């Protein structure tokens, strides 16, 4: 097993032996199954309720877990001094970050795969058609998790757990308001505010591009070329954040 493989496996084991992950996993199962209850109370059509509620619960839980696992991970390693036992080996700090990132991501994607399995089971049970938009929403969530994990690692490379967590949540929320930010940059009368909104729109991660939940709920059409572009954007953004995290972490003293 390579160094990165060993680090990824350690991260994976840690996440799965962590009770919070287990609790969240159980919670996810319960919430998805509760869709059945929602179906009896909602005024929307059956198809929309199943699609929307399942995607919403999955997204909420996975985003929460992503921020919990990634933001503060590097700081936790330094505070607990576990990192001393890794970087005192012939392991570069870049390999450390990449290995830990990979392990966290594998954990999240495995959870998403299990949740998706349950979700699709509901589709079969309620005879809901699986549309292209639902597939796009599920794949978009994958890329969103890739990006959000990188955001957590980036903040964790230079700040404490609380600051990292709050910053990652803030960036997640802002990232989903990119469309509104663009609107402000085009229509606001204040040139300062318009400029700030424009800078924010271009610099901050645009998570709205990866969000196909509304399209899925309304059984809208997916333009796959545009979707591929959005995914590429998310992956490149994540790679840049990881690179920045590595550069910062490489210069950091572990006191």
């Amino acid at each position, binding site marked *: 097993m390579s160094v990165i493989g060993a680090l990824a496996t*350690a991260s994976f084991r*840690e996440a799965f032996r962590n009770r919070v992950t287990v609790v969240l996993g159980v919670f996810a199962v319960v919430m998805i199954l509760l869709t059945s209850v929602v179906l009896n109370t909602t005024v929307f059509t059956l198809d929309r309720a199943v699609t929307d509620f399942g995607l919403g619960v999955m997204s909420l839980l996975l985003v929460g877990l992503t921020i919990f696992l990634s933001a503060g991970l590097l700081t936790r390693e330094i505070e607990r001094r576990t990192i*001393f036992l*890794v970087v005192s080996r*012939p392991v570069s700090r870049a390999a450390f970050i990449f290995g830990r990132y990979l392990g966290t991501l594998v954990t999240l994607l495995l959870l998403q795969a299990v949740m998706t399995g349950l979700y699709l089971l509901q589709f079969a049970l309620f005879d809901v058609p699986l549309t292209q938009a639902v597939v796009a929403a599920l794949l978009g969530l994958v890329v969103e998790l890739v990006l959000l994990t990188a955001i957590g690692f980036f903040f964790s490379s230079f700040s404490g757990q609380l600051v990292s967590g709050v910053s990652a949540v803030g960036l997640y929320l802002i990232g989903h308001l990119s469309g509104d930010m663009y609107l402000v940059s085009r229509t606001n009368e204040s040139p300062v505010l318009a400029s700030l909104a424009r800078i924010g729109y271009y610099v901050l991660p645009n998570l709205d591009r990866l969000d196909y939940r509304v399209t899925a709920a309304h059984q809208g059409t997916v333009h796959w070329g545009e979707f591929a572009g959005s995914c590429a954007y998310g992956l490149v953004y994540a790679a840049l954040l990881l690179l920045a995290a590595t550069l910062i972490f490489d210069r950091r003293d*572990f*006191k």
Partner: protein
Amino acid sequence: MTDVAAVSCAGLGKVYRLGVRAKKVRALQGVSLTVAPGEVFGLIGPNGAGKSTTIKILLNLITATEGEAKLFGVDVRDRKARVSLGYVPESPSPYEHLTGREYVEFQAALAGISGPERTKEVHRVLERVELGPLSRVAIRRYSKGMVQRVMLAGALLGHPRLLVLDEPTSGLDPLGRRLVREVILEQRRAGAAVLFCSHIISDVESLCDRVALLVGGNIKREGRVGELISGSGRTHEVVVDAAASEVQSLVGALVEGLEEVSGQAMFRVGSDGLQRVLHALVTAGKRVERVQPIRFSLEDTFLAEMQSTASRVGGSLE
């Protein structure tokens, strides 16, 4: 390769910045030392003396602000410098979700040991630290001594040419301490260098070939243990068949700690004054019962050096 020093530092310095106002603390200044293969080198000093800072620079956990540090002739910032290194940190906290065996397997992977060799090595080191079936229990359930054994097992993987131990015997029971001492001596016999940092000076004295005393980020004394002890000045305890008042009147100015025990005077005198004191007493017709050299310990040297440097603890603010 055997001629290359396992550890070599020259003019090592470290300044930490504190807070947003960028106050600076100098934790280390001009530290130079070398550790040869097959040598056990001890770093002693009070809290905040710079021992851990020195070790952290050597392991590339922090970057020196001045000077250079090398392991086996390779700059410590190059990961190749740590290819043959075993490390046990102070108050270790490994990944507690892993079992002891999983932790050692993880360390073996990081050390680049793979395939059947890994299985063999993991088995060997776990046997050496006598962890037995407990290696399959999660580390979070281990006592401090067991954690230390696992740490030691990880450090011994791949027969390292340099072992860095930061307070390895602190808080251990006598069995654990004996194990650590045995491992250190085994490594020395195998030709590995051991850099050993401890507050337990008796351990340092009995295990180390050479010692450096760090105070306030500077090396105050360095040398072989015997040299440091003899350099403290030899003192003798003398017992004379006479009253203390008589000895006081004859040689009172030359002796220390004069007291009377069971009708005999007992006092201490340094090597310089011994002959004069004995001559004066014999000339006065007093019978000298016993002259015994007092052996100074490394701890005495340590305390004397601390007193002479006003016991400054921690680095200096700049």
